[in-house]
């Protein structure tokens, strides 16, 4: 490339970017058309939200199209059935089982795994972002529908039906609170039930802090079983298993499907007086779910025993077998359903994550550039308006990223879109500020010279002022790009994928290698983007500005 060609103005760059955006948007529009009524409704919602973002009408339209394009690029066309799961292992395994069964029934299915907690899944189901997810009857009664009459299965079903939600028959296991002891200790002391335990005051109890505090925990358990006053140690749930193994405590509270029960060879004491409410696992699904999918899920009724669930949790959490494999093995052995599981190689996984991450970073950055540079121009031209614009953009910057994501979920749902919106919002400040500063720093004599030539204001901006400010503007864009790489990792919490996914899974499974599988490429991507910007700077910042002093 000759120096003359390299000395392009930023306007050229912007034009090329706009062309690319238009192409993407056109493709997106085609894809959306095929997406049907639901897609249209979602598109409308986006447009409404974005109309508050400010900037010129053209920039706003471009942003809407970009975000729409990103929505399509991020999640592809919507599958027939979308299964969701919470961010703990059992939920992910159940989600995989459901997804594979529906797939075997000949429907196109997508599993959006590890989507955070109950609130996110429930609102996603109500909003139609997902069609199915595993839930527990106890959670429904105590948390989601708390305060409503949900007596018996019929009561629960009626409360759900009022919201357009249905529930499968129980899968067959109950993931509730329980008290566990080491098998040999329990055997030696002859303890099988909680009533047995209540009669043996010499057994040392170590209970999790949460269990000791909860109404349905230790206080009511003690009353129910008439346990005599005794010393109880409070300790962390994860440490309780080690304390049991070392013998410093002899009984603790646990979740009945914890894989550690098997790992540490614990006996779960029978709740013979039925103190704990049942937390029967079921699938919740939307009333409009395809009947073939409903039939497929129906095959699981009563088929997953507690022992089987514990075994599957153990394989996933302790033996580090991937959840889809665990799910497929279960379907094969229990239902005789043969499912082909494509386990991705590490390299393939990293590649897919890189693609997702890169799309998040680049799309949000591009949208931010298209909006921020004009906003920066407004700031430089109209200082009073600029103060307001900068104030708003700064205020956005101070919202913690988790809070911003949670705020965006009701508006944009889950997945790539709210993540993109958050990253877009965070990218604004550095670019708006650097554009405003860069333009303000153009020497008055040059501005006057451009005016004296008889160039109209628009041409002065495009041919003189923006090129002279290009270096400052690019520095702002670079800052935003690097921040975006970091912020994008948080997007995994709301199903946006990217490098945050292995980090999240790694934390859940206590797997350092998996955490690094996300953290190292993220750092590499930040460095690579820095390098890329060095090159872009050579192309975009005119050579005359990079020369030092006069000869």
């Amino acid at each position: 490339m000759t120096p003359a060609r390299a000395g392009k103005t930023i306007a050229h760059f912007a034009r090329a970017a706009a062309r690319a955006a238009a192409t993407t948007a056109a493709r997106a529009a085609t894809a959306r058309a095929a997406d049907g009524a639901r897609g249209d409704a979602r598109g409308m919602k986006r447009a409404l939200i974005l109309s508050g973002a400010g900037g010129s009408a053209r920039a706003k339209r471009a942003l809407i199209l970009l975000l729409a394009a990103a929505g399509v690029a991020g999640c592809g066309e919507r599958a027939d059935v979308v299964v969701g799961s919470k961010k703990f292992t059992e939920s992910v395994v159940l989600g995989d089982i459901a997804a594979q069964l529906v797939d075997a029934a000949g429907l196109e299915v997508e599993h959006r795994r590890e989507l955070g907690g109950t609130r996110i899944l429930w609102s996603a189901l109500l909003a139609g972002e997902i069609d199915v997810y595993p839930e527990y009857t106890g959670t429904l009664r105590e948390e989601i529908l708390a305060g409503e009459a949900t007596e018996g299965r019929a009561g629960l079903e009626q409360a759900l039906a009022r919201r357009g939600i249905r529930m499968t028959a129980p899968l067959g296991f109950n993931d509730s609170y329980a008290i566990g002891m080491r098998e040999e200790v329990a055997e030696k002391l002859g303890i099988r039930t909680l009533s047995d335990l209540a009669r043996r005051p010499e057994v040392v109890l170590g209970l999790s802090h949460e269990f000791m505090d909860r109404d349905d925990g230790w206080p009511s358990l003690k009353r129910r079983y008439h346990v005599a006053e005794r010393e109880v140690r409070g300790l962390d749930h994860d440490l309780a298993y080690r304390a049991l193994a070392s013998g410093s405590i002899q009984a603790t509270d646990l979740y009945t499907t914890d894989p550690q029960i098997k790992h540490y060879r614990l006996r779960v004491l029978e709740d013979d007086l039925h103190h704990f409410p049942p937390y029967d696992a079921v699938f919740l699904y939307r009333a409009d779910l395809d009947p073939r999918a409903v039939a497929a899920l129906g095959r699981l009724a009563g088929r997953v025993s507690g022992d089987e669930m514990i075994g599957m949790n153990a394989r996933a959490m302790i033996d580090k077998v991937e959840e889809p494999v665990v799910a497929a093995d279960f379907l094969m052995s229990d239902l005789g359903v043969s499912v082909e599981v494509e386990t991705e190689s590490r390299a393939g996984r990293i590649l897919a994550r890189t693609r997702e991450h890169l799309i998040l970073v680049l799309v949000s950055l591009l949208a931010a550039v298209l909006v921020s540079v004009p906003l920066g121009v407004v700031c430089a031209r109209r200082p009073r308006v600029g103060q307001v614009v900068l104030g708003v953009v700064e205020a956005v910057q101070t919202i913690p990223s988790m809070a911003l994501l949670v705020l965006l979920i009701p508006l944009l749902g889950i997945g790539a879109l709210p993540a993109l919106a958050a990253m877009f919002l965070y990218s604004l400040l550095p670019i708006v500020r650097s554009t405003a500063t860069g333009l303000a720093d153009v020497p008055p004599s040059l501005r006057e010279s451009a005016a004296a030539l008889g160039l109209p204001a628009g041409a002065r901006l495009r041919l003189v002022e923006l090129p002279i400010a290009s270096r400052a503007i690019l520095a702002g864009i670079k800052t935003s790009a690097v921040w975006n790489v970091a912020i994008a990792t948080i997007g995994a919490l709301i199903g946006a994928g990217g490098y945050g996914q292995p980090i999240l899974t790694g934390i859940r499974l206590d797997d350092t290698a998996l955490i690094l599988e996300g953290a190292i490429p993220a750092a590499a991507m930040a460095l690579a983007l820095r390098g890329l910007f060095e090159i872009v700077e050579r192309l975009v910042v005119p050579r005359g500005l990079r020369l030092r002093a006069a000869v």
Partner: protein
Amino acid sequence: MVVTYGAQRALGPIDLEVPSGRRTVLIGPSGCGKSTLLRVLNGLVSPSAGTVRFDGAEVTPGSALAVRRRMGYVIQDGGLFPHLTARRNAALMARWLGRPAREVEARIEELADLVRLPRELLDRFPAQLSGGQRQRVSLMRALMLDPEVLLLDEPMGALDPIIRYELQEDLRAAFDKLGKTLVLVTHDIAEAWHFGHDLVLIRDGRIVQQGSLDDMVREPADPFVTRFLNAQRSPVTQ
């Protein structure tokens, strides 16, 4: 014509006619308003009262752009755009107006010869040129559209004496050849005498005296005229 900044009157009342085809020099001490007066002429500064007429028509914010294309403008440090080469600085306006590239190129080479700028310097950036060379490029840019009027605001104010002398000689030769209407702002009597047909001495935003240098020396309208001329007399000529 009057220019005010807030409550403060910066210029005027002034009534001045710049005759076509003549070289008018605005002189006066720093801050007297001579540069402001120059910028009023091409509409960079709008008078708060009164009117500016160019070629019979009033200069308004609406007509300023068209008027500026008929007036070349050169400022003290040249005002060259650092991101463009000398050639592209000079060509910017013509290219923007969509003039054919070949025509623009020919004009640039013609102007380079006129202002005595070596052609090999045309592809350098302003940062790679000396002060005198930058002023020559700036003049090329001002002359690009073959304007009827040239406005020069202390174009040689920041140059070393020798370079300044050479440039003064070359520009005088160029102006003699072009015969354009010229308005030059300077505080240097010698430069005013070198270039100007008519001198306009300005003090505190008002015209003190207008005429040739000889008139000012022989018949000063005000003691200030003599004082200003004497303060600037060169020791060599004394």
